[in-house]
Structure formats: structure tokens, C-alpha cells
């Protein structure tokens, strides 16, 4: 009896770990999409009416960036909040080094653009760079997420078979 219960617990743990890794990957994917959406939103709001960044941040919403606390930090930060958050806590929000560096570089430049047209051009440039990078790694990330889930289930099933 004790062996069966132990096997069930181990099997469930293996499955959950697989799901946990898969969810982590999916959240990183969602965060990357969130940052891409944020840059797109900044571009739209600047071209629509030269809206200052603090107002853009307060009106922007994204599920994953809200959940991980990035938007909260951004709204409550100072006038250079985006750059400061990304340089201090960038690794918490974006796993891929290349995308992180692109976002840090963008956040350091956008506020200092002397004209709205320069800001829009900068957004367009970084949207294109981030999209290129994302398209290069997205399939791999999705496969990893699926694989983690499958491996967790297989490991759980294997433990059950082995012990029962």
C-alpha cells in the first residue's frame, strides 16, 4: 500500500515538474510578446499625439507584464523607469539575452528622442529587430515547452509502471 502511494506521489511530482517547466517557457514567450506589444503601443501613442511615456505606460495593459510586476514597477518609477528596470531586473522578465539587450537599448533611447518622428522611427526599428529575433527562437521555445510537458507525463507514467 505504502509503495503504491509513494509511486503515485512521485509520478504526480514528475508530471507537475514537466508542466511547471512548460508553463515557465510559455510565460517567457508571453513576456516577449508583451514587450513587443509595449513597443508597438508606444509607437502608436507617439504618432497619435506625442503622448509622454509616463502616460503611455499608465494606459498600457498586458496580462503577463502585469502578472510579473513589470508594469507596476514601470508606472511607479521615475522618468527613466523603463531603462532602469530593464538594466536592474531585465533577466527576471526576458530569458533570451538578445531580446533583452534590444529592449534595454530601446528603453535607453526612446525618451531622449528630440522629435516624435524620431521616436516613431526608433520604435519601428526595434519592433522589426525584436520580431526577427522572436521568429528565430519561437518554434524552438514552443517545442521545448511541449517537450517538457510530454517528458513530465512520460516520467510520471514510467515511475508508476516501475513501482506498481
Amino acid at each position, binding site marked *: 500500500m505504502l509503495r503504491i502511494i509513494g509511486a503515485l506521489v512521485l509520478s504526480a511530482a514528475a508530471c507537475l515538474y514537466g508542466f511547471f517547466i512548460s508553463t515557465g517557457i510559455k510565460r517567457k514567450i508571453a513576456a516577449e510578446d508583451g514587450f513587443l506589444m509595449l513597443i508597438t503601443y508606444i509607437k502608436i501613442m507617439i504618432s497619435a499625439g506625442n503622448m509622454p511615456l509616463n502616460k503611455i505606460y499608465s494606459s498600457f495593459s498586458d496580462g503577463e507584464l502585469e502578472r510579473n510586476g513589470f508594469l507596476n514597477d514601470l508606472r511607479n518609477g521615475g522618468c527613466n523607469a523603463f531603462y532602469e528596470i530593464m538594466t536592474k531586473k531585465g533577466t527576471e522578465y526576458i530569458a533570451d539575452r538578445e531580446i533583452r539587450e534590444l529592449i534595454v537599448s530601446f528603453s535607453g533611447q526612446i525618451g531622449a528622442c528630440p522629435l*516624435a518622428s524620431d521616436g516613431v522611427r526608433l520604435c519601428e526599428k526595434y519592433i522589426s529587430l525584436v520580431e526577427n529575433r522572436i521568429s528565430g527562437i519561437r518554434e524552438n521555445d514552443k517545442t521545448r515547452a511541449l517537450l517538457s510537458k510530454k517528458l513530465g507525463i512520460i516520467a510520471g507514467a514510467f515511475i508508476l509502471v516501475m513501482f506498481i
Partner: protein
Amino acid sequence: MFKTAYASGFDNILKQLPTVICSAVGELKKSGKFSGLSEIRLRAGMYQSLTVNGENLIISDDGKLGKNVLSPLILDEKAIGDIVFKMCSGSVYSHAEELKKGYISQSGIRIGVCGKGLVKDGDPSGFLKYNSLNIRLPHHVASAADELLRYIDKNGIEKVGGILVVSPPGYGKTTFLRALASRLSGGFYSLGKFMASRVCIVDEREEIYLPEAFEKGFCDVISALPKAYSIEICTRVMAPDYIVCDEIGSDEEAEAICASATRGITFAATCHGNGIEDVSLKKGIRSLFERKIFNTVCELSLNGREHTCIIKNAEREGSIRIC
């Protein structure tokens, strides 16, 4: 005639400056000379100074003030750029229209900007680098226009008509106009009768309107838009008795003023110049005199620290040169 008062936005500005400069302002407060502070001037690679009662006091690197200090505070171009960035709330592009005209406005305080200009498609479009800042502390001096108000009481508001305030820069035109607008909207006497007017302030550079100066009264403010456009808008939608605007002079502004005046609106405005003869050399202003839009001219002058105001009848004075 002029006493100084505190301007509400100044604390916000101070928060964005290096702490040494805040210490220097604190030093000034301790010495009881803060009321004389009119400007904070910051320059890359040179002295930083406060203008107090017309004198330039240099800021030392430990926040002390003096006419001659041993170790003056030196800021580099990056530090000045960072201050501009903060003054623009981290979005320089959103202040592009102001920067194009050489200033940033914040909480009723105008910050003059100098540096390496940016030209796009042949038009000046702001700055690439910033070298100098001039933070001008506005003063609400409730009594600044008292002399003119006595004149209005004696002669009647109808006879006084449109008012043009004339002086060279730095003589207190805007302070005078603010005090006048505050009293016209808050209550004044005309031929012994108490009255108040609906006043619309056209505040293109956001430096006339200070909340503490307009707590009472019938006052509407249109800000951050070109004067000619604002005059047209507030004539159409606000139906004021008076329109108050600073630093008029262009033909376009004169046209807008003429168009509004024909609808029965009276104007109180300022103009750079040494006197009525000087400003009537400007085509736009001359046409306003010719159409009798300004009947009264107030010439401000400065003798040492004393401001004086000479009130003239534009029709009588102007007839010497205008026609």
C-alpha cells in the same frame, strides 16, 4: 513697487536639479534672500549661478553662494542634458514644440534652453545637445498693477480700453500682466463702482497663469497653443470681456486681435520695447494703435531695484509718431 512671492511649481523644479543647487537655494532661504531670487542659470563647463535682486551669485561645489567662490560648481553637458530629460518627464519628444521655441514650461515656470540646434528639412526643430538652462522663477505680486487700477478707477474702464504693457525684457511685464488679469477677473473699481470681468488668459508659454494668483475670479486659461489660434478659439467659445496675452507683435497675432476686438472684446497684452514710440515701429502693433485697440499704454522702467510704471494715453501719445 514689486515684492516677490512664492511660485508653487518651484519645488517640483528643484527636485529635478542636482542636490548642490538645492543646497544653494536652501542657503538663500536661510539668509532670508529667497524672495529676491529670480533665476537659476546652469551652464555646461562654466559657472552655475542664481540671480538674486539682479546680482549673479556663483554656486560653489559645496552649495555655498558668493560673487567670487574658490571652487565653483561645474556641470558637464551630460548633466545639463539629464536635467532637460527630467524636466521633460523623460519624454523629450513630447516637448518638441516648446523646445523648438527655446524653452520648456513646467508648472507655470519657463526654462529657457540653449545648445546645439537640430535642423530638419531646413526648419529649426529643437536641440541635439544642451549647454545652458535659465530657470525663471515667476513672481505673483498682487500689487504690481495697483497704479493702473487706480487709473482705471479714476477714468473708468470704458475710457481706459485696451491696455498694452511695454518694457524691455526682465522689467516685470508678465508679473504686471498677471496681477492685472487677477484683479480684472477678481474685482476692481471703475469710477468708484466695484466690478469684475470675464477674463480669458492666452498663455502660449504657460507662464502667466499661476494657481495662487487666480484663486478667486472669473478667469479661463488657454495654454500651450499659438496665440493667434488661442485668441480665435476663446473669442468664439468663451465670450470673455478681456483677453490677456503676453509678448504680442507678429502680424498674425495683430490680425487675430483685430478680429476679436471687432466682436467687443478688450485686450490687455505685453510687448517688448523701450516705449510707445519704439513698439509702434512694429507693423503689427502700429496697426493695433491705428485701429484704437489699445487706448492705454503702461511703460515699465527699472531704476536700480525700483520698478516704475508710466501710464500713457495711446491716442494722444501715439499721434506724435503713428500717423
